[in-house]
């Protein structure tokens, strides 16, 4: 039965699923990468994504527009991270603790709101969801076409964000300033530049992306909201930023590795290989722990990551 996995059609199906599964994680990880490059550790990614997933669903349900749902999810993610930014940048509260609190907020608020909105929370209505948009010509390429070019628009957005964030970080003035804020904020401050403004912008961008990633989970695929449906994806995104050395392309590669494991375990379950499925489910997370153990040293991490900036 393991041999079935080597069929071309199965390989294509696993790889296409990999790209699909990667989408929300990649969006959140690229956003978190930008936030961390500015020196702020947003541990509240899981809760932010969860709220994004929920508000996209409820937004699409009430407005009847999937795209409005997406916009609402991004605004929600932005607001969540605005709260976070105010706490850790302005009030200089411990970043990790604040992030954990944000996760609890996301978890509690989404369940509470779900129950408030629908009397029977066990049987919530479904919404439509985004279809795939095959790209003309490209999707006809054998093998690669169905894997890369027959995906949803948000997937294309996520992939395009890799070169976009790279260009921003390493080729623009704003990117240089953002990285400087994460490495040595004082170097910006003594040139008369506002460190906090740059960190706010980076953290809010991270929130928008987490909201977008969350939206993909509901209006992008599941068409409904299930409590705690992010299921560790936000945490995985944080691990991926570390494993990806705070750089866009390695972040993409790390995301694909984790997503491939996830896609593979789904396929193995589907074929019915006699391995306990709980074990298979754990694979991406075991891999995450291994990745962290191998990348023990935080080389490549912004020097002032997680440390609030005081002028004196």
């Amino acid at each position, binding site marked *: 039965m393991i041999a079935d996995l080597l069929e071309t059609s199965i390989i294509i199906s696993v790889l296409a699923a990999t790209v699909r599964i990667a989408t929300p994680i990649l969006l959140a990880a690229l956003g978190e990468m930008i936030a961390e490059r500015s020196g702020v550790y947003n541990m509240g990614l899981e809760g932010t994504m969860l709220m994004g997933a929920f508000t996209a669903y409820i937004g699409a349900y009430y407005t009847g527009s999937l795209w409005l749902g997406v916009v609402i999810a991004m605004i929600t993610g932005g607001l969540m991270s605005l709260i976070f930014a105010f706490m850790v940048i302005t009030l200089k509260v411990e970043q990790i603790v604040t992030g954990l609190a944000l996760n609890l907020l996301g978890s509690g608020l989404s369940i509470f709101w779900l129950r408030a909105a629908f009397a029977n929370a066990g049987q919530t209505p479904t919404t439509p969801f985004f279809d795939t948009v095959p790209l003309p010509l490209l999707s006809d390429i054998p093998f690669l076409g169905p894997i890369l070019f027959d995906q949803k628009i948000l997937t294309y957005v996520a992939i395009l964000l890799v070169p976009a964030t790279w260009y921003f970080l390493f*080729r*623009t*003035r*704003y990117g*240089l*300033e953002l*990285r*400087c804020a994460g*490495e*040595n904020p*004082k*170097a*910006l*401050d*003594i*040139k*008369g*530049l506002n460190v906090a403004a740059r960190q706010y912008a980076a953290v809010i961008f991270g929130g928008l992306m987490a909201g977008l990633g969350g939206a993909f989970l509901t209006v992008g695929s599941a068409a409904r909201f299930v409590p705690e449906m992010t299921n560790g994806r936000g945490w995985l995104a944080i691990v991926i930023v570390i494993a990806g050395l705070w750089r866009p392309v390695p972040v993409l590669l790390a995301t694909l590795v984790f997503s491939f494991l996830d896609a593979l375990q789904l396929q193995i379950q589907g074929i019915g290989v006699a391995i306990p499925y709980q074990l298979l489910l754990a694979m991406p997370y075991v891999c995450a722990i291994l990745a962290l153990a191998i990348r023990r040293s935080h080389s490549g991490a912004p*020097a002032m990551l997680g440390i609030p900036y005081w*002028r*004196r």
Partner: protein
Amino acid sequence: MTTAPATPRLTVRHLTKRFGTLIANDDVSLSIAAGELHCLLGENGAGKSTFSACLYGLLQPEAGEIAIDGVKVELTSPAKAIASGIGMVHQHFVLVPSFTVLENIVVGTGSGPRLDMTAARSRILELSRQFGLEITPGRLVADLSVGEKQWVEIVKALYLGARLLILDEPTAVLTPQESERLFAIIQQLKASGIAVILISHKMNEVMRSDRVSVLRKGRLVGTVTTKDVTRDDLTMMMVGRPVAQVHARSKPGAGETALSFKGVSLAKGGRTHLKNVTLDLAAGEIIGIAGVAGNGQDELLEAVAGLVRPDSGNILLRGEDISVLSVHDIARRGAGYVPSDRFRDGLVSDFSIAENLILGQHWDERWRSGPFLDETATRRSAETAIASYSVMASGPDMLCGRLSGGNAQKVILAREFAKARHLLLCNQPTRGVDIGVIEFVHGELLRKREEGCAILLVSEELEDIFALSDRIAVMFRGEILGVFPRDEADITRIGPLMAGHAHGAAA
């Protein structure tokens, strides 16, 4: 310096800055001409840093006005100060090690989203040629020597268009040769009309300025033309009383060997910290270790104190090999250790003076009654220590975190001197303390020497080393490049060795 030109580059009138009830700058007025090297002299806490922070817009004074080239400016932020042509090189480097020199200089400048690195690079090269600052834009700052980092800091300020440059203790980290380079650069800056404010407490540097303004306890004692005054005049102005420079001392005692290093080597994290160090220290002798910070001095003392274990070689204390003993056992054999970072390694800030004085010896019979601490005994001995070391404190219960740097140092000295029956390890005992305390520390070290204690002294202040040592050893990259009796040692012999020049290697 003749009389100042009609419009000075900088005019400060009646500047006052308060922190709560403390007046850090009290009605300070001065003016600096274009092309002038103006030195700001004062003890720690005299208000030099506050004054320069006000000039750079990092602090806002409560009263007073500042004018640049005769135009009044409101310096509410560093951005305003930069726009007014004020540049500052901070006491500690403000650089990003993982950025290139170019990126460090360019970050935060320019307009629009694009980074125009080509234009920036040629401007930087032009500036560095003009002022004799040798920098390579493409190199990573992490790979630069300390001196090169200092040149980058200066170019950074010039790149922003500084016409008045504040240098805050710029030579603290430089070798004597690099300091000479700095003064050559300052000459170039002056020649192009840039006014330079030099904050320093090193008299030989202060004497090279055009004028000196002396601050004491936040007030301007006076501004003098440097060539009209002597060092003693300036010290007198700074401290407010005459300072005894020379301590009487006996001939170096030909005591028996107290401490000896036999081929001690230590490497850690891919770096050589100690390289085959062999050195003997006699009872009643002070050996001063001269060297630029980070050349193995810390590790040398830590190896003796037992904080790091050498990879090879032996360290003998009165004939006994202590290189395998624990910190505790070494201390019990009569070794005291004064670490360089007093608030990090020397004291517990949240403990009282009495508690800090028994730190590490609280097991001792003297402070114990049964399993309990004998509070009466600890308090009584703390009172004695406070009195005999003239610690300015409210009493034995005062928390050490609330002491000034000088008084905290006295608490550490009191504790470690009591421990040091045979050997005293002293790392930077006078860093960041006032002249009064420096005098006191020098006196105490010499008294300890008279008692027959062997003293290993590490200091970045060559003045300490020359004032106290019987012999001077120069360390470079973990190696002792030379040992001189004090009368044969002078700066022309020590300086090149500090930069590693004995081996023909560049610093």
